[in-house]
C-alpha cells in the first residue's frame, strides 16, 4: 500500500527509530511500512494517524495512486 510515512517523518526530522519509539514498534516495522513491504494493522494505522494529527486515508492510499496520497491535509 502506498503511504506518506517517510515524508511525514522527514518533515519532523525524526529517524525511523524515533518514530518506532513513539509508536511502540520496532524500527524494522517502520522500515517495512515505508518501503511498502508490510501494511500495518488498523490499530497501528490509527496510532500513526493520531501521532501525525491526520486521517488514515491522508497517510495511506490503498489504491496505489502515486499522486493520490499527496493531497493530504493536516487536521486542525
Amino acid at each position, binding site marked *: 500500500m502506498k503511504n506518506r510515512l517517510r515524508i511525514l517523518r522527514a518533515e519532523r526530522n525524526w529517524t525511523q527509530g524515533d518514530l518506532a*519509539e*513513539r*509508536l*511502540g*514498534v*520496532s524500527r*524494522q*516495522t517502520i*522500515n*517495512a511500512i515505508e518501503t511498502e*513491504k*508490510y501494511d*500495518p*494493522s488498523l490499530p*497501528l494505522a490509527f496510532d500513526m494517524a493520531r501521532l501525525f494529527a491526520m486521517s488514515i486515508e491522508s497517510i495511506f492510499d490503498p489504491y496505489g495512486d502515486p499522486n493520490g496520497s499527496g493531497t493530504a491535509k493536516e487536521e486542525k
Partner: protein
Amino acid sequence: MTAVTQSQVKTSKLDWMVPASVAGFIVAYFGARILMKIPDLPRALYFAAALLPAPAFLWFLWSMARVQKHADELQRRIQLEALAIAWPLSLAIVMTVSLLQKAGFLGWEPMWVYLPSTYFVGLIWAVRRYQ
C-alpha cells in the same frame, strides 16, 4: 507511551535469554549423552541423565513465549511465516528420512537435529521478505 517503552525495555532484557537457554539445552543434551555412555551406572542415573535437558528446554520455551509477548505485529508475523515454512519442510524431511531408513539407505539417526534448521530457513526467508 511509557508502557510501550517499558515493554521494549523488557524485550531487550529478554534478548539474551533465548540464546542462553538454547546454549543451556545443547550443553545439557550432550552432557546427558556423555553420562548415558558410562557403563554400569544405576538405572535411576540413566533416567536422570535422560531428563537433564528438560529444564533447559522449559527455560527456552518460557523465554520464547516472553519474547513473543513483547514482539510487535511485524515481528509476530515474521515468526508465523517462519513456522509456516518450517512445519511442511520438517514434515517433508521426516518423511523422506523415514523412507530412506526403511529402504535401508540410512541407519538410525536422531531426526530432531534437522528440525530446528527448518525454522531458521523459514526465519531467514521471512526476515529478508520485510527488509
